[in-house]
């Protein structure tokens, strides 16, 4: 390849690319581990930004036709560090790097999470994610996936949130263990550890095994995506961890998980007609997760918890798309492409709007020091820039055109509807899925309306809201960029979809035609509709403002009384009608009455996550019970121990004698 008149060997360029990606991050880790000062922390973070910036070029490099395969020149106990990047991986790496970079920029600017340790761990997380996505060896994949878990765990330390972090760590590790077993099994069947040589193992595995493996892999990665019942860690961790950790977890790490699920299911295992039953099981889990996330998000008190449930819902939709892809792929490849494109597009979109919203919400908490959504309000007048970017994020999450969230949900429903419904039991299932997706979408929209309305709109509900600290300088920049991405990806979604479709075609090894566009309606709709919305609003606004009488600012109408801060609808009250409608699902709404004085009485409504109450706690108690039983065997009496030796000896001898 010739660059600026110089000729380079392809291998040199590839090696240079990997070096340029990995080395700054490595240097960052080392620097961050050694130094402590804030200045160095900025250097460390900027090294991370450099790495991200280089890895953004992954897709362009792939596009130039370079074979992005590289083996690091250092062997390890788990074999060689083999990296290989295919088209889909390249897409995801490039895109995730952009998000990662913007988040790190925000870290630097906001300084709330800075510090050498944090920045060094960011570098480590970047490396882990990069190597996980590009891993070409099973063990490297498992190693880096666990490393992602570890670094996010370390990154999530803030104050006294040990329990929340631990919950995450333990559940994620359980998932990791499942993955280790699943991948080991596949490696033993494939006879090689090199992932790029795994090609359609399902014929060798037999379909029962393949189905079990697909389930194990979806659930294994699903522990980080928050699939039911592994979502219990999400709300607490999102609420207590440093926000950038939560953001990375919700965006980049989810992208990694989704990518790995896609690659494993569609490329390594390979889908055959016999595998559809497992897809139905996954559909059920995904739908249940989505509904659960939507339901729980309605009653959350803390904005970050609400966003955690929203992440759960969004990721469940992506998994749903993947499962539908499995169902469609045999009968109608074009539709399968469409639904997979929808899923991947939603993954990308989610990482944009979710990072925007999480960081915006954190800015709110940072500026006001308030964490309870019920005590917020009226920030749009005091923090106008923030409220402007946040409304775009909210619109994107609520899937309102012309944002990117709309496009992916639109595609999703299209692919659901376009299903060839004459076949199998699908005809009954599809309407149900459709209904569930519809209800989820509207419930989430309700949550988002509540989120925005009770934080930015209305009158302030507490002192802190009246005079928030101004935003830190420069923090608006990454947020604005993300907001611009929300709009841009909404308008120009087709370009991204084409790339994703091509990646999926090459991943699955399907014939490129019929393309996904053949089953899709309104190819230009995102662009046309989006432009139409924006243009019409602009024209109407402009036209209407001309010749209008000047407005008058008046106090909010209050039936003649003076409005105090409690005379506003409360955030819990806002969704209360819905809670009443879906009451059985919330199970227990605990009402705590505290009598402080003889006259003052506070009523607090608490929503306990039923999964924690009815699944995790009893399970924990059971395990502890069993362990304590076993613990009783250690009596402290040495005679008992001798007895164990004697019994062991006798039993072993007997066993050997008998068998």
């Amino acid at each position, binding site marked *: 390849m010739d660059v600026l008149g110089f000729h380079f060997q392809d291998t040199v360029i590839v090696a240079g690319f990997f070096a340029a990606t990995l080395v700054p991050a490595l240097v960052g880790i080392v620097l961050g581990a050694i130094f402590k000062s804030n200045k160095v922390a900025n250097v460390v973070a900027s090294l991370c930004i450099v790495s991200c910036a280089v890895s953004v070029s992954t897709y362009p490099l792939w596009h130039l036709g370079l074979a992005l395969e590289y083996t690091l020149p250092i062997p390890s106990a788990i074999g060689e560090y083999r990296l290989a990047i295919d088209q889909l991986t390249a897409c995801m790496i490039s895109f995730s790097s952009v998000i990662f970079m913007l988040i790190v920029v925000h870290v630097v600017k906001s300084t709330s999470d800075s510090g050498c340790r944090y920045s060094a761990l960011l570098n480590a997380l970047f490396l882990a994610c990069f190597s996980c996505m590009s891993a070409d060896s099973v063990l490297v994949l498992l190693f880096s996936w666990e490393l992602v878990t570890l670094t996010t765990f370390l990154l999530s330390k803030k104050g006294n949130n040990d329990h929340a972090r631990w919950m995450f760590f333990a559940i994620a590790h359980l998932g990791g263990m499942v993955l280790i077993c699943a991948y080991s099994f596949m490696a033993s069947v494939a006879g090689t550890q090199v992932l790029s040589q795994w090609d359609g193992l399902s014929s060798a595995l037999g379909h029962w095994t393949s189905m079990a493996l697909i389930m194990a892999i979806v659930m294994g990665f699903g522990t980080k995506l928050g699939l039911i019942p592994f979502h219990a860690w999400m709300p607490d961790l999102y609420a207590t961890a440093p926000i950038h950790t939560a953001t990375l977890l919700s965006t980049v790490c989810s992208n990694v998980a989704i990518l790995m699920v896609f690659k494993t299911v569609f490329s390594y295992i390979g889908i055959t007609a016999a595998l559809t039953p497992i897809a139905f099981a996954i559909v059920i889990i995904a739908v249940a997760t989505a509904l659960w996330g939507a339901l729980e998000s309605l009653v959350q008190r803390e904005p970050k918890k609400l966003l955690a449930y929203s992440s759960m819902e969004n990721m469940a939709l992506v998994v749903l798309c993947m499962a539908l892809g499995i169902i469609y792929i045999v009968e109608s490849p074009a539709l399968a492409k469409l639904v997979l494109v929808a899923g991947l597009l939603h993954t990308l979109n989610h990482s944009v709007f979710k990072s925007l919203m999480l960081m915006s919400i954190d800015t709110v908490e940072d500026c006001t020091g308030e964490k309870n959504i019920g005590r917020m309000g009226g920030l749009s007048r005091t923090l106008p820039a923030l409220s402007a970017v946040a409304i775009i994020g909210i619109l994107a999450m609520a899937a309102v055109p012309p944002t990117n969230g709309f496009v992916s949900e639109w595609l999703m429903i299209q692919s659901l509807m376009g299903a060839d419904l004459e076949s199998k039991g699908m005809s009954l299932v599809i309407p149900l899925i459709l209904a569930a997706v519809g209800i989820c979408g509207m419930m989430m929209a309700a949550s988002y309306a509540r989120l925005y309305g009770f934080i930015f709109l209305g009158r302030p509900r507490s002192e802190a809201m009246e005079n928030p600290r101004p935003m830190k300088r420069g923090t608006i920049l990454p947020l604005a960029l993300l907001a611009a991405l929300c709009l841009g990806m909404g308008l120009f979604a087709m370009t991204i979809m084409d790339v994703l479709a091509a990646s999926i075609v090459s991943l699955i090894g399907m014939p490129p035609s019929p393309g996904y566009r053949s089953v899709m309606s309104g190819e230009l709709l995102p662009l046309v509709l989006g432009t139409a919305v924006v243009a019409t609003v602009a024209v109407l606004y402009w036209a209407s403002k001309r010749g209008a009488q000047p407005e008058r600012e008046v106090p909010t109408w209050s039936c003649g009384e003076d409005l105090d801060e409690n005379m506003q609808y409360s955030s819990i009250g806002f969704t209360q009608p819905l809670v009443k409608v879906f009451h059985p699902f919330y199970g227990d709404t605990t009402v705590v009455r505290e009598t402080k004085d003889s006259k003052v009485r506070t009523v607090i409504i608490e929503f306990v996550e039923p999964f924690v109450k009815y699944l995790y706690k009893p399970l924990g108690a059971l395990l502890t019970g069993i362990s304590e039983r076993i*613990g009783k065997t250690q009596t402290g009496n040495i005679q008992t121990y001798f007895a164990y030796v004697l019994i062991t000896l006798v039993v072993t001898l007997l066993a050997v004698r008998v068998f």
Partner: protein
Amino acid sequence: MDPILTSNLIDIFAVSMLLTSVLAMASARMRPLIKLFVLQSFFLAAFEFTVAYSQDEPHIYVMAAMTFGIKVILIPRMLQYIMARIRVDDELSLSVGIPGSMLLSTGLILFSYYVSEPLVITLTTEERNSLVLSFAIMLIGLQMMTTRRKAITEVVGLLMAENGLFLGAIALSNGMPFIVELGAFIDVLMAIIIIGIFAFRINKSFDSVDTTLLRRLKEE
């Protein structure tokens, strides 16, 4: 001597060892217990001597002598010294009563026969019994450690199990290479000395050598 006589003698000594073991399980007092141990060790020495004679293996003579010196004379002396120093109460405390212990011992003997059956058929007659008996003595030694509460009885149990072991080792292969035997003896001796030291410490710390008192170390 007559080979039949020697082989009979070998059997007799081996059986006597088992007998002393069983009797030891039945004894409720400390001093008879130690005496029974001395007796058992003596039978072991006699057994070794007979085997040495019949096989004409000089190093087994040495072993017999060592057994006699260490196990019949030295160790009992030490045990008695320890008992005198820490004024052990002669009463044994049992966690399983004597009838129960007897039944258990019988069970273990039967078990030894059952388990060693495949081994035994490959051996010559005189080795057979000795091997089964050595199994039984070892298991009964462990049983004594399991059911007797005092530190000293635990030691005696261990020593009896070791006697069984030597019985088996010699019956099977005329003893191991000399260096092993020597090492084993030194090991035993050292163990007893060190155990003795700790028995003193236990007595000092707990005012008793009843090891049931030693049960603070466990999970809450």
